[in-house]
Protein backbone atom coordinates (compact mmCIF):
# COMPACT_ATOMS: atom_id res chain seq x y z
CA UNK A 1 0.00 0.00 0.00
CA UNK A 2 2.68 2.44 0.99
CA UNK A 3 4.57 1.28 -2.02
CA UNK A 4 2.20 3.49 -3.95
CA UNK A 5 3.32 6.39 -1.86
CA UNK A 6 6.93 5.90 -2.77
CA UNK A 7 6.16 5.66 -6.43
CA UNK A 8 4.22 8.84 -6.02
CA UNK A 9 7.19 10.64 -4.49
CA UNK A 10 9.23 9.96 -7.57
CA UNK A 11 6.50 11.29 -9.81
CA UNK A 12 6.33 14.48 -7.76
CA UNK A 13 10.08 14.83 -7.80
CA UNK A 14 10.23 14.46 -11.55
CA UNK A 15 7.48 17.03 -12.02
CA UNK A 16 9.32 19.48 -9.82
CA UNK A 17 12.50 18.94 -11.77
CA UNK A 18 10.65 19.40 -15.03
CA UNK A 19 9.01 22.67 -14.06
CA UNK A 20 12.17 24.04 -12.51
CA UNK A 21 11.04 24.14 -8.88
CA UNK A 22 14.17 22.24 -8.00
CA UNK A 23 17.45 21.84 -9.83
CA UNK A 24 19.00 18.60 -10.89
CA UNK A 25 21.41 18.60 -7.99
CA UNK A 26 18.65 18.87 -5.42
CA UNK A 27 16.74 16.24 -7.36
CA UNK A 28 19.60 13.81 -7.14
CA UNK A 29 20.27 14.49 -3.49
CA UNK A 30 16.60 14.02 -2.87
CA UNK A 31 16.63 10.62 -4.46
CA UNK A 32 19.63 9.63 -2.45
CA UNK A 33 18.06 10.82 0.76
CA UNK A 34 14.86 8.98 0.04
CA UNK A 35 16.69 5.84 -0.83
CA UNK A 36 14.84 6.14 -4.08
CA UNK A 37 17.93 5.30 -5.97
CA UNK A 38 16.52 5.73 -9.34
CA UNK A 39 17.25 3.10 -11.84
CA UNK A 40 20.32 3.30 -13.94
CA UNK A 41 19.16 1.47 -17.02
CA UNK A 42 15.94 0.53 -15.35
CA UNK A 43 15.92 -3.16 -14.66
CA UNK A 44 17.13 -5.72 -12.25
CA UNK A 45 20.58 -4.51 -11.40
CA UNK A 46 22.13 -7.74 -10.31
CA UNK A 47 24.68 -7.70 -7.59
CA UNK A 48 28.08 -8.89 -8.58
CA UNK A 49 31.55 -8.46 -7.19
CA UNK A 50 30.53 -6.95 -3.88
CA UNK A 51 28.15 -4.35 -5.23
CA UNK A 52 25.14 -3.33 -3.23
CA UNK A 53 21.73 -3.38 -4.85
CA UNK A 54 19.11 -1.11 -3.37
CA UNK A 55 15.61 -1.41 -4.63
CA UNK A 56 12.93 1.17 -4.81
CA UNK A 57 10.28 2.70 -7.04
CA UNK A 58 12.46 4.06 -9.81
CA UNK A 59 11.36 5.64 -13.00
CA UNK A 60 13.49 6.91 -15.81
CA UNK A 61 17.20 6.56 -15.56
CA UNK A 62 19.01 9.55 -14.23
CA UNK A 63 22.54 8.99 -15.43
CA UNK A 64 24.27 11.45 -13.17
CA UNK A 65 22.49 10.16 -10.11
CA UNK A 66 24.29 6.91 -9.85
CA UNK A 67 27.72 8.42 -9.59
CA UNK A 68 26.46 11.06 -7.19
CA UNK A 69 25.14 8.46 -4.84
CA UNK A 70 27.76 5.79 -5.32
CA UNK A 71 30.54 8.24 -4.54
CA UNK A 72 28.95 9.15 -1.23
CA UNK A 73 28.43 5.63 -0.01
CA UNK A 74 31.57 4.16 -1.53
CA UNK A 75 33.65 6.43 0.66
CA UNK A 76 31.89 5.35 3.81
CA UNK A 77 31.63 1.62 3.11
CA UNK A 78 33.89 0.84 0.20
CA UNK A 79 31.09 -0.59 -1.92
CA UNK A 80 29.59 0.37 -5.22
CA UNK A 81 25.84 0.78 -5.25
CA UNK A 82 23.58 -0.32 -8.05
CA UNK A 83 19.99 0.68 -8.22
CA UNK A 84 16.94 -1.31 -9.13
CA UNK A 85 13.71 0.57 -9.52
CA UNK A 86 11.41 -2.29 -10.31
CA UNK A 87 9.59 -1.89 -7.00
CA UNK A 88 9.85 -3.89 -3.79
CA UNK A 89 6.27 -5.06 -3.51
CA UNK A 90 5.51 -7.75 -0.97
CA UNK A 91 4.86 -10.13 -3.88
CA UNK A 92 8.18 -9.35 -5.55
CA UNK A 93 10.12 -9.82 -2.32
CA UNK A 94 8.42 -13.14 -1.65
CA UNK A 95 9.10 -14.23 -5.24
CA UNK A 96 12.81 -13.47 -4.90
CA UNK A 97 13.08 -15.41 -1.70
CA UNK A 98 11.02 -18.36 -2.95
CA UNK A 99 12.99 -18.69 -6.17
CA UNK A 100 16.27 -18.66 -4.25
CA UNK A 101 17.56 -15.96 -6.57
CA UNK A 102 17.71 -12.93 -4.31
CA UNK A 103 19.34 -10.03 -6.10
CA UNK A 104 18.21 -7.15 -3.92
CA UNK A 105 20.24 -6.14 -0.89
CA UNK A 106 18.06 -3.46 0.62
CA UNK A 107 14.37 -2.85 -0.03
CA UNK A 108 12.34 0.22 0.70
CA UNK A 109 9.21 -1.60 1.81
CA UNK A 110 6.06 -1.53 3.89
CA UNK A 111 6.92 -2.37 7.54
CA UNK A 112 3.68 -4.33 7.93
CA UNK A 113 4.33 -6.44 4.86
CA UNK A 114 7.94 -6.83 5.93
CA UNK A 115 6.94 -8.12 9.32
CA UNK A 116 4.75 -10.85 7.89
CA UNK A 117 7.52 -11.80 5.44
CA UNK A 118 9.98 -11.75 8.34
CA UNK A 119 7.86 -14.06 10.43
CA UNK A 120 7.71 -16.42 7.49
CA UNK A 121 11.50 -16.45 7.58
CA UNK A 122 12.05 -14.46 4.41
CA UNK A 123 13.48 -11.24 5.82
CA UNK A 124 16.53 -10.55 8.00
CA UNK A 125 16.23 -9.02 11.44
CA UNK A 126 17.64 -5.52 11.65
CA UNK A 127 21.02 -5.59 13.37
CA UNK A 128 20.76 -2.90 16.02
CA UNK A 129 24.43 -3.21 16.81
CA UNK A 130 25.06 -1.52 13.46
CA UNK A 131 21.87 0.44 12.95
CA UNK A 132 21.22 3.03 15.66
CA UNK A 133 17.88 2.75 17.43
CA UNK A 134 18.37 6.24 18.84
CA UNK A 135 18.38 7.67 15.32
CA UNK A 136 14.78 6.82 14.60
CA UNK A 137 11.52 8.10 16.08
CA UNK A 138 10.48 6.15 19.13
CA UNK A 139 8.51 3.03 18.28
CA UNK A 140 9.54 2.78 14.64
CA UNK A 141 12.55 0.52 14.98
CA UNK A 142 11.02 -2.86 14.19
CA UNK A 143 12.36 -6.35 14.30
CA UNK A 144 12.43 -6.84 10.53
CA UNK A 145 12.58 -3.26 9.29
CA UNK A 146 13.33 0.26 10.43
CA UNK A 147 11.58 3.46 9.46
CA UNK A 148 13.37 5.46 6.79
CA UNK A 149 10.82 8.27 6.45
CA UNK A 150 7.22 9.14 7.26
CA UNK A 151 4.13 10.34 5.46
CA UNK A 152 0.60 11.07 6.61
CA UNK A 153 -2.95 10.38 5.57
CA UNK A 154 -4.68 13.70 6.18
CA UNK A 155 -7.93 15.55 5.52
CA UNK A 156 -7.73 17.92 2.55
CA UNK A 157 -10.72 20.15 1.89
CA UNK A 158 -12.15 22.80 -0.37
CA UNK A 159 -11.13 25.96 1.47
CA UNK A 160 -13.08 28.13 -0.93
CA UNK A 161 -16.24 26.60 0.54
CA UNK A 162 -15.26 25.66 4.07
CA UNK A 163 -12.68 28.30 5.00
CA UNK A 164 -14.93 29.90 7.61
CA UNK A 165 -15.27 26.69 9.56
CA UNK A 166 -12.75 24.19 8.21
CA UNK A 167 -13.16 20.49 9.05
CA UNK A 168 -11.24 19.51 12.16
CA UNK A 169 -11.88 15.80 12.46
CA UNK A 170 -12.97 12.68 10.65
CA UNK A 171 -16.40 13.23 12.17
CA UNK A 172 -16.52 16.42 10.07
CA UNK A 173 -15.32 14.43 7.09
CA UNK A 174 -18.31 12.12 7.49
CA UNK A 175 -20.69 15.05 8.03
CA UNK A 176 -21.99 15.65 4.51
CA UNK A 177 -24.74 17.98 5.71
CA UNK A 178 -22.43 20.48 7.31
CA UNK A 179 -19.74 20.01 4.66
CA UNK A 180 -21.57 19.24 1.43
CA UNK A 181 -19.90 17.72 -1.57
CA UNK A 182 -18.36 14.45 -2.66
CA UNK A 183 -15.47 12.77 -0.88
CA UNK A 184 -12.51 10.77 -2.05
CA UNK A 185 -10.70 8.04 -0.13
CA UNK A 186 -7.79 5.69 -0.74
CA UNK A 187 -8.52 2.64 -2.86
CA UNK A 188 -5.94 0.52 -1.03
CA UNK A 189 -7.52 0.94 2.40
CA UNK A 190 -4.56 2.14 4.50
CA UNK A 191 -5.72 4.92 6.80
CA UNK A 192 -9.39 4.50 5.92
CA UNK A 193 -10.28 2.16 8.77
CA UNK A 194 -8.63 4.47 11.30
CA UNK A 195 -10.46 7.46 9.84
CA UNK A 196 -13.79 5.65 10.01
CA UNK A 197 -13.29 4.64 13.64
CA UNK A 198 -12.29 8.15 14.67
CA UNK A 199 -15.35 9.47 12.85
CA UNK A 200 -17.41 7.00 14.85
CA UNK A 201 -16.03 8.38 18.07
CA UNK A 202 -13.17 6.04 18.94
CA UNK A 203 -10.47 8.09 20.73
CA UNK A 204 -7.16 8.42 18.90
CA UNK A 205 -5.21 6.47 21.50
CA UNK A 206 -7.72 3.60 21.58
CA UNK A 207 -7.77 2.82 17.85
CA UNK A 208 -5.70 -0.37 17.81
CA UNK A 209 -6.53 -3.16 17.47
CA UNK A 210 -8.97 -1.80 14.90
CA UNK A 211 -12.59 -2.83 15.34
CA UNK A 212 -13.17 -3.93 11.77
CA UNK A 213 -16.93 -4.43 11.92
CA UNK A 214 -17.42 -0.99 13.36
CA UNK A 215 -15.04 0.58 10.84
CA UNK A 216 -16.74 -1.08 7.88
CA UNK A 217 -20.19 -0.06 9.06
CA UNK A 218 -19.00 3.53 9.19
CA UNK A 219 -17.33 3.27 5.78
CA UNK A 220 -20.56 1.97 4.25
CA UNK A 221 -22.26 5.06 5.55
CA UNK A 222 -20.04 7.37 3.54
CA UNK A 223 -19.99 5.20 0.42
CA UNK A 224 -22.80 7.00 -1.45
CA UNK A 225 -20.86 10.23 -1.10
CA UNK A 226 -17.58 8.97 -2.51
CA UNK A 227 -16.91 10.27 -6.01
CA UNK A 228 -13.89 8.02 -6.43
CA UNK A 229 -11.59 5.78 -4.44
CA UNK A 230 -8.31 7.21 -5.67
CA UNK A 231 -5.56 4.92 -6.81
CA UNK A 232 -2.67 7.30 -7.56
CA UNK A 233 -1.53 10.43 -5.76
CA UNK A 234 -2.02 12.38 -8.97
CA UNK A 235 -5.65 11.27 -9.08
CA UNK A 236 -6.29 12.44 -5.52
CA UNK A 237 -4.77 15.79 -6.39
CA UNK A 238 -6.87 16.13 -9.54
CA UNK A 239 -10.12 15.29 -7.74
CA UNK A 240 -9.57 18.08 -5.24
CA UNK A 241 -8.16 20.62 -7.65
CA UNK A 242 -11.02 20.24 -10.12
CA UNK A 243 -13.61 20.35 -7.36
CA UNK A 244 -14.87 16.84 -8.05
CA UNK A 245 -14.36 16.16 -4.37
CA UNK A 246 -14.88 18.76 -1.66
CA UNK A 247 -12.92 16.71 0.82
CA UNK A 248 -10.45 13.87 0.65
CA UNK A 249 -8.35 11.46 2.66
CA UNK A 250 -5.02 11.98 0.91
CA UNK A 251 -1.26 11.88 1.47
CA UNK A 252 0.02 15.06 3.08
CA UNK A 253 2.56 15.50 0.31
CA UNK A 254 -0.15 15.63 -2.34
CA UNK A 255 -2.39 17.76 -0.12
CA UNK A 256 0.41 20.26 0.09
CA UNK A 257 0.87 20.26 -3.68
CA UNK A 258 -2.83 20.93 -4.32
CA UNK A 259 -2.71 23.75 -1.82
CA UNK A 260 0.19 25.35 -3.68
CA UNK A 261 -1.42 24.61 -7.05
CA UNK A 262 -4.68 26.27 -6.14
CA UNK A 263 -3.20 29.15 -4.12
CA UNK A 264 -4.95 27.85 -1.05
CA UNK A 265 -8.37 27.20 -2.59
CA UNK A 266 -7.78 23.67 -1.36
CA UNK A 267 -6.23 23.34 2.07
CA UNK A 268 -5.47 20.56 4.52
CA UNK A 269 -4.94 19.77 8.16
CA UNK A 270 -2.96 17.34 10.31
CA UNK A 271 -5.93 17.09 12.67
CA UNK A 272 -6.47 13.38 13.32
CA UNK A 273 -4.01 12.59 10.56
CA UNK A 274 -2.64 9.07 10.37
CA UNK A 275 1.13 9.04 10.21
CA UNK A 276 2.69 6.03 8.51
CA UNK A 277 6.30 4.89 8.25
CA UNK A 278 8.13 3.40 5.31
CA UNK A 279 10.93 1.04 6.17
CA UNK A 280 14.23 -0.46 5.11
CA UNK A 281 14.24 -4.23 4.87
CA UNK A 282 16.73 -6.90 3.83
CA UNK A 283 15.65 -10.15 2.18
CA UNK A 284 17.34 -13.24 3.62
CA UNK A 285 20.24 -14.42 1.50
CA UNK A 286 20.91 -11.04 -0.07
CA UNK A 287 23.98 -11.22 -2.32
CA UNK A 288 26.09 -8.52 -0.67
CA UNK A 289 25.45 -9.98 2.75
CA UNK A 290 23.57 -8.76 5.76
CA UNK A 291 26.44 -6.73 7.16
CA UNK A 292 26.85 -4.48 4.13
CA UNK A 293 23.12 -3.91 3.99
CA UNK A 294 23.00 -2.88 7.65
CA UNK A 295 25.90 -0.49 7.14
CA UNK A 296 24.01 1.12 4.33
CA UNK A 297 20.87 1.50 6.43
CA UNK A 298 22.91 3.07 9.22
CA UNK A 299 24.48 5.46 6.73
CA UNK A 300 21.03 6.62 5.60
CA UNK A 301 20.11 7.64 9.14
CA UNK A 302 22.11 10.84 8.75
CA UNK A 303 19.76 13.74 9.63
CA UNK A 304 21.11 16.11 6.98
CA UNK A 305 20.14 13.72 4.19
CA UNK A 306 16.71 13.31 5.66
CA UNK A 307 16.13 17.05 5.61
CA UNK A 308 17.01 17.10 1.93
CA UNK A 309 14.43 14.39 1.47
CA UNK A 310 11.85 16.58 3.15
CA UNK A 311 12.83 19.52 0.95
CA UNK A 312 12.45 17.58 -2.25
CA UNK A 313 9.66 15.14 -1.50
CA UNK A 314 7.91 16.34 1.60
CA UNK A 315 8.46 13.09 3.46
CA UNK A 316 9.04 13.45 7.20
CA UNK A 317 12.45 12.52 8.59
CA UNK A 318 12.78 9.21 10.42
CA UNK A 319 15.55 10.60 12.60
CA UNK A 320 14.19 12.98 15.27
CA UNK A 321 17.49 14.87 15.24
CA UNK A 322 16.59 16.14 11.79
CA UNK A 323 13.62 18.29 12.83
CA UNK A 324 15.79 21.00 14.36
CA UNK A 325 17.41 21.80 11.04
CA UNK A 326 14.20 21.92 9.03
CA UNK A 327 13.83 25.37 7.43
CA UNK A 328 10.86 27.41 8.70
CA UNK A 329 8.94 27.27 5.44
CA UNK A 330 9.02 23.48 5.50
CA UNK A 331 7.86 23.06 9.09
CA UNK A 332 4.32 22.39 7.96
CA UNK A 333 5.40 19.55 5.67
CA UNK A 334 7.42 17.87 8.39
CA UNK A 335 4.78 15.34 9.40
CA UNK A 336 6.93 13.62 12.03
CA UNK A 337 7.91 16.85 13.84
CA UNK A 338 6.68 16.87 17.45
CA UNK A 339 4.21 19.72 16.96
CA UNK A 340 2.60 17.99 13.95
CA UNK A 341 2.80 14.53 15.38
CA UNK A 342 0.89 15.68 18.46
CA UNK A 343 -2.18 16.17 16.27
CA UNK A 344 -1.91 12.77 14.64
CA UNK A 345 -2.06 9.09 15.39
CA UNK A 346 0.78 6.77 14.37
CA UNK A 347 -0.18 3.86 12.17
CA UNK A 348 0.31 0.54 13.97
CA UNK A 349 2.26 -1.56 11.50
CA UNK A 350 2.03 -4.61 13.76
CA UNK A 351 -1.72 -4.56 13.27
CA UNK A 352 -1.23 -4.30 9.52
CA UNK A 353 1.26 -7.16 9.49
CA UNK A 354 -1.40 -9.51 10.82
CA UNK A 355 -4.63 -8.12 9.42
CA UNK A 356 -3.99 -6.10 6.31
CA UNK A 357 -4.53 -8.86 3.72
CA UNK A 358 -7.89 -9.89 5.06
CA UNK A 359 -8.93 -6.31 5.69
CA UNK A 360 -7.95 -5.27 2.17
CA UNK A 361 -10.01 -8.06 0.61
CA UNK A 362 -12.95 -7.00 2.70
CA UNK A 363 -12.39 -3.34 1.89
CA UNK A 364 -12.25 -3.95 -1.86
CA UNK A 365 -15.39 -6.07 -1.62
CA UNK A 366 -17.13 -3.28 0.28
CA UNK A 367 -16.00 -0.66 -2.20
CA UNK A 368 -17.13 -2.73 -5.18
CA UNK A 369 -20.31 -4.10 -3.66
Amino acid at each position, binding site marked *: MENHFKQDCLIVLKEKLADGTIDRRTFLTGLVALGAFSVAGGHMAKAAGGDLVVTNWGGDAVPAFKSAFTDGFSQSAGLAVKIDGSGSTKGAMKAQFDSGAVHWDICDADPGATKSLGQAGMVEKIDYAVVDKAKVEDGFAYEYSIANYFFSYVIAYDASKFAGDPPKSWADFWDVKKYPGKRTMYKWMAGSLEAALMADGVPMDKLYPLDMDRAFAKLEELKPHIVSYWDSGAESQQLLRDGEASMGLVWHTRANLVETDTNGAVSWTYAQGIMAPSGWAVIKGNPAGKEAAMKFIAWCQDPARQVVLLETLGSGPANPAAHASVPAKLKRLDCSAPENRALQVAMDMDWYAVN*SDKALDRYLAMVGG
Partner: protein
Amino acid sequence: MLLLALYVVPFAGVVSWSVTQPEIGFAQYWRILSGGDMTNVFLRTLRIAVISTTITVLVGYCLSYYWVMGSRLRQTILEVCIFIPFWISVLVRAFGWLIILRDNGMANSFLMAAHVITEPLGTGRNEFAVIVGMVHFMVPFSVFPMATVMRKIDRRILLAAHGLGADPATVFRKIFLPLSMPGVFAAFVMVLVFSVGFFVTPAILGGGRVVMVAEAVFVQMFQTTNWGLGAAMSVVLLLLIGAIVGLAYRLLGVRSFVG
Protein backbone atom coordinates in the same frame (compact mmCIF):
# COMPACT_ATOMS: atom_id res chain seq x y z
CA MET B 1 8.47 -27.32 -27.82
CA LEU B 2 8.80 -23.56 -27.43
CA LEU B 3 5.13 -23.29 -26.57
CA LEU B 4 5.54 -26.06 -24.05
CA ALA B 5 8.55 -24.46 -22.40
CA LEU B 6 7.33 -20.89 -22.38
CA TYR B 7 3.68 -21.34 -21.70
CA VAL B 8 2.54 -24.73 -20.55
CA VAL B 9 5.24 -25.32 -17.94
CA PRO B 10 4.86 -21.98 -16.17
CA PHE B 11 1.10 -22.35 -16.29
CA ALA B 12 1.35 -25.76 -14.70
CA GLY B 13 3.19 -23.95 -11.92
CA VAL B 14 0.31 -21.53 -11.54
CA VAL B 15 -2.17 -24.40 -11.41
CA SER B 16 -0.11 -26.09 -8.73
CA TRP B 17 0.01 -22.89 -6.66
CA SER B 18 -3.75 -22.73 -6.79
CA VAL B 19 -4.11 -26.05 -5.00
CA THR B 20 -1.08 -25.88 -2.70
CA GLN B 21 -0.98 -22.32 -1.34
CA PRO B 22 -1.33 -21.56 1.46
CA GLU B 23 -2.18 -25.24 2.03
CA ILE B 24 -3.04 -28.23 -0.11
CA GLY B 25 -6.65 -28.42 -1.18
CA PHE B 26 -9.33 -26.67 -3.14
CA ALA B 27 -10.07 -23.96 -0.57
CA GLN B 28 -9.22 -21.17 -3.00
CA TYR B 29 -11.62 -22.54 -5.60
CA TRP B 30 -14.36 -22.86 -3.00
CA ARG B 31 -13.81 -19.25 -2.08
CA ILE B 32 -14.29 -18.24 -5.72
CA LEU B 33 -17.40 -20.39 -6.14
CA SER B 34 -18.93 -19.97 -2.70
CA GLY B 35 -20.83 -16.78 -3.38
CA GLY B 36 -18.57 -14.45 -1.41
CA ASP B 37 -16.49 -11.45 -2.46
CA MET B 38 -14.55 -13.29 -5.16
CA THR B 39 -17.69 -14.71 -6.74
CA ASN B 40 -18.92 -11.15 -6.97
CA VAL B 41 -15.77 -10.10 -8.79
CA PHE B 42 -16.38 -12.82 -11.37
CA LEU B 43 -20.07 -12.05 -11.74
CA ARG B 44 -19.36 -8.35 -12.09
CA THR B 45 -16.70 -9.07 -14.69
CA LEU B 46 -19.03 -11.31 -16.68
CA ARG B 47 -21.93 -8.87 -16.48
CA ILE B 48 -19.83 -5.92 -17.64
CA ALA B 49 -18.20 -8.04 -20.34
CA VAL B 50 -21.50 -9.29 -21.76
CA ILE B 51 -23.14 -5.85 -21.71
CA SER B 52 -20.19 -4.07 -23.28
CA THR B 53 -19.67 -6.84 -25.84
CA THR B 54 -23.30 -6.71 -26.92
CA ILE B 55 -23.18 -2.94 -27.37
CA THR B 56 -19.82 -3.18 -29.09
CA VAL B 57 -21.07 -5.70 -31.62
CA LEU B 58 -24.22 -3.69 -32.34
CA VAL B 59 -22.25 -0.50 -32.90
CA GLY B 60 -19.58 -2.39 -34.79
CA TYR B 61 -22.17 -4.01 -37.04
CA CYS B 62 -23.59 -0.65 -38.13
CA LEU B 63 -20.10 0.69 -38.76
CA SER B 64 -19.06 -2.38 -40.70
CA TYR B 65 -22.17 -2.21 -42.83
CA TYR B 66 -21.52 1.41 -43.71
CA TRP B 67 -17.86 0.74 -44.24
CA VAL B 68 -18.43 -2.13 -46.63
CA MET B 69 -21.54 -0.95 -48.43
CA GLY B 70 -20.93 2.80 -48.44
CA SER B 71 -19.63 5.15 -51.08
CA ARG B 72 -15.92 5.75 -51.42
CA LEU B 73 -16.15 8.98 -49.41
CA ARG B 74 -18.14 7.39 -46.63
CA GLN B 75 -15.64 4.55 -46.49
CA THR B 76 -12.75 6.96 -46.10
CA ILE B 77 -14.45 8.88 -43.32
CA LEU B 78 -15.27 5.66 -41.51
CA GLU B 79 -11.76 4.36 -41.88
CA VAL B 80 -10.47 7.48 -40.17
CA CYS B 81 -13.04 7.06 -37.40
CA ILE B 82 -12.17 3.41 -36.87
CA PHE B 83 -8.40 3.51 -37.21
CA ILE B 84 -7.50 6.63 -35.28
CA PRO B 85 -8.96 5.45 -31.97
CA PHE B 86 -7.53 2.03 -32.71
CA TRP B 87 -4.04 3.52 -32.66
CA ILE B 88 -4.47 5.54 -29.48
CA SER B 89 -3.32 3.97 -26.23
CA VAL B 90 -5.94 2.47 -23.97
CA LEU B 91 -4.70 4.66 -21.14
CA VAL B 92 -5.14 7.89 -23.07
CA ARG B 93 -8.59 6.85 -24.17
CA ALA B 94 -9.65 6.03 -20.63
CA PHE B 95 -8.51 9.43 -19.35
CA GLY B 96 -10.20 11.07 -22.30
CA TRP B 97 -13.50 9.52 -21.35
CA LEU B 98 -12.98 10.55 -17.76
CA ILE B 99 -12.65 14.17 -18.84
CA ILE B 100 -15.82 13.89 -20.89
CA LEU B 101 -17.96 11.91 -18.45
CA ARG B 102 -17.11 13.17 -14.97
CA ASP B 103 -19.55 15.40 -13.09
CA ASN B 104 -17.91 18.66 -14.09
CA GLY B 105 -16.75 17.19 -17.38
CA MET B 106 -17.55 18.18 -20.93
CA ALA B 107 -20.70 16.12 -21.37
CA ASN B 108 -22.37 17.29 -18.18
CA SER B 109 -21.28 20.91 -18.69
CA PHE B 110 -22.67 20.93 -22.21
CA LEU B 111 -25.98 19.37 -21.23
CA MET B 112 -26.35 21.74 -18.31
CA ALA B 113 -25.53 24.78 -20.42
CA ALA B 114 -28.13 23.60 -22.92
CA HIS B 115 -30.63 23.24 -20.05
CA VAL B 116 -31.23 19.60 -20.87
CA ILE B 117 -30.32 18.62 -17.33
CA THR B 118 -30.09 20.59 -14.10
CA GLU B 119 -27.74 18.32 -12.19
CA PRO B 120 -24.75 16.29 -13.34
CA LEU B 121 -25.80 12.84 -14.48
CA GLY B 122 -23.21 10.97 -12.45
CA THR B 123 -21.81 9.43 -15.60
CA GLY B 124 -18.16 9.38 -14.55
CA ARG B 125 -16.30 6.96 -12.29
CA ASN B 126 -18.77 4.10 -12.20
CA GLU B 127 -19.86 1.02 -14.13
CA PHE B 128 -21.50 3.13 -16.83
CA ALA B 129 -18.23 4.94 -17.52
CA VAL B 130 -16.37 1.63 -17.58
CA ILE B 131 -18.76 0.24 -20.18
CA VAL B 132 -18.48 3.36 -22.35
CA GLY B 133 -14.69 3.16 -22.17
CA MET B 134 -14.61 -0.54 -22.96
CA VAL B 135 -17.03 -0.26 -25.88
CA HIS B 136 -15.00 2.56 -27.37
CA PHE B 137 -11.86 0.51 -27.04
CA MET B 138 -13.28 -2.62 -28.59
CA VAL B 139 -15.40 -1.36 -31.47
CA PRO B 140 -12.53 -1.55 -33.98
CA PHE B 141 -11.84 -5.13 -32.91
CA SER B 142 -15.42 -6.06 -33.67
CA VAL B 143 -15.46 -4.22 -36.99
CA PHE B 144 -12.60 -6.13 -38.56
CA PRO B 145 -14.05 -9.67 -38.41
CA MET B 146 -17.53 -8.47 -39.35
CA ALA B 147 -16.35 -6.33 -42.24
CA THR B 148 -14.28 -9.23 -43.56
CA VAL B 149 -17.34 -11.47 -43.67
CA MET B 150 -19.51 -8.75 -45.15
CA ARG B 151 -17.02 -8.07 -47.93
CA LYS B 152 -17.26 -11.69 -48.98
CA ILE B 153 -21.01 -11.56 -49.42
CA ASP B 154 -21.72 -11.74 -53.12
CA ARG B 155 -23.36 -8.47 -54.10
CA ARG B 156 -25.10 -10.21 -57.03
CA ILE B 157 -27.25 -12.11 -54.56
CA LEU B 158 -28.44 -8.84 -53.10
CA LEU B 159 -29.08 -7.46 -56.58
CA ALA B 160 -30.93 -10.60 -57.54
CA ALA B 161 -33.17 -10.35 -54.50
CA HIS B 162 -33.82 -6.75 -55.29
CA GLY B 163 -34.56 -7.65 -58.89
CA LEU B 164 -37.06 -10.24 -57.74
CA GLY B 165 -39.00 -7.56 -55.94
CA ALA B 166 -37.71 -7.54 -52.39
CA ASP B 167 -37.59 -4.12 -50.74
CA PRO B 168 -34.27 -3.03 -49.10
CA ALA B 169 -35.42 -3.98 -45.59
CA THR B 170 -36.34 -7.47 -46.74
CA VAL B 171 -33.07 -7.85 -48.62
CA PHE B 172 -31.21 -6.93 -45.47
CA ARG B 173 -33.27 -9.10 -43.15
CA LYS B 174 -33.54 -12.19 -45.31
CA ILE B 175 -30.23 -12.16 -47.15
CA PHE B 176 -27.57 -9.84 -45.80
CA LEU B 177 -28.10 -10.40 -42.07
CA PRO B 178 -27.99 -14.22 -42.17
CA LEU B 179 -24.97 -14.19 -44.46
CA SER B 180 -23.13 -11.81 -42.15
CA MET B 181 -23.90 -13.76 -38.95
CA PRO B 182 -20.63 -15.75 -38.89
CA GLY B 183 -18.82 -12.42 -38.66
CA VAL B 184 -21.10 -11.31 -35.84
CA PHE B 185 -20.44 -14.46 -33.84
CA ALA B 186 -16.72 -14.28 -34.44
CA ALA B 187 -16.68 -10.65 -33.33
CA PHE B 188 -18.81 -11.42 -30.29
CA VAL B 189 -16.54 -14.20 -29.10
CA MET B 190 -13.38 -12.24 -29.72
CA VAL B 191 -14.61 -9.12 -27.96
CA LEU B 192 -16.07 -11.10 -25.06
CA VAL B 193 -12.79 -12.89 -24.48
CA PHE B 194 -11.04 -9.56 -24.65
CA SER B 195 -13.39 -7.88 -22.19
CA VAL B 196 -13.19 -10.41 -19.38
CA GLY B 197 -9.50 -9.61 -19.13
CA PHE B 198 -9.77 -5.81 -19.02
CA PHE B 199 -7.61 -4.04 -16.45
CA VAL B 200 -6.76 -0.42 -17.18
CA THR B 201 -10.14 0.89 -18.29
CA PRO B 202 -12.09 -0.29 -15.21
CA ALA B 203 -9.25 0.83 -12.94
CA ILE B 204 -9.40 4.38 -14.29
CA LEU B 205 -13.06 4.87 -15.15
CA GLY B 206 -14.53 2.82 -12.33
CA GLY B 207 -13.69 5.30 -9.59
CA GLY B 208 -11.97 2.49 -7.70
CA ARG B 209 -15.25 0.59 -7.34
CA VAL B 210 -15.28 -1.56 -10.44
CA VAL B 211 -12.60 -4.13 -9.69
CA MET B 212 -12.64 -6.79 -12.41
CA VAL B 213 -10.92 -10.18 -12.38
CA ALA B 214 -7.62 -9.04 -13.88
CA GLU B 215 -7.15 -6.35 -11.26
CA ALA B 216 -8.28 -8.68 -8.48
CA VAL B 217 -5.61 -11.18 -9.53
CA PHE B 218 -3.06 -8.39 -9.47
CA VAL B 219 -4.10 -7.48 -5.91
CA GLN B 220 -3.77 -11.07 -4.72
CA MET B 221 -0.34 -11.48 -6.33
CA PHE B 222 1.31 -8.20 -5.39
CA GLN B 223 -0.57 -6.59 -2.52
CA THR B 224 -1.68 -9.43 -0.31
CA THR B 225 0.67 -12.16 -1.65
CA ASN B 226 -2.17 -14.63 -1.51
CA TRP B 227 -0.73 -16.43 -4.51
CA GLY B 228 -2.98 -19.42 -4.15
CA LEU B 229 -6.12 -17.34 -4.60
CA GLY B 230 -4.57 -15.28 -7.39
CA ALA B 231 -3.57 -18.47 -9.18
CA ALA B 232 -6.98 -20.06 -8.69
CA MET B 233 -8.63 -16.94 -10.11
CA SER B 234 -6.34 -17.05 -13.15
CA VAL B 235 -7.23 -20.69 -13.69
CA VAL B 236 -10.96 -19.99 -13.41
CA LEU B 237 -10.58 -17.05 -15.79
CA LEU B 238 -8.76 -19.23 -18.29
CA LEU B 239 -11.39 -21.95 -18.00
CA LEU B 240 -14.08 -19.36 -18.53
CA ILE B 241 -12.41 -18.07 -21.67
CA GLY B 242 -11.80 -21.63 -22.80
CA ALA B 243 -15.47 -22.39 -22.32
CA ILE B 244 -16.52 -19.36 -24.34
CA VAL B 245 -14.17 -20.20 -27.19
CA GLY B 246 -14.99 -23.90 -27.02
CA LEU B 247 -18.70 -23.25 -27.14
CA ALA B 248 -18.25 -20.92 -30.06
CA TYR B 249 -16.23 -23.48 -32.01
CA ARG B 250 -18.82 -26.10 -31.24
CA LEU B 251 -21.73 -23.97 -32.37
CA LEU B 252 -20.15 -22.23 -35.30
CA GLY B 253 -17.35 -24.43 -36.46
CA VAL B 254 -13.79 -23.34 -37.00
CA ARG B 255 -14.49 -21.97 -40.45
CA SER B 256 -16.23 -18.82 -39.37
CA PHE B 257 -13.14 -17.85 -37.38
CA VAL B 258 -10.47 -18.47 -39.93
CA GLY B 259 -12.64 -17.77 -42.94
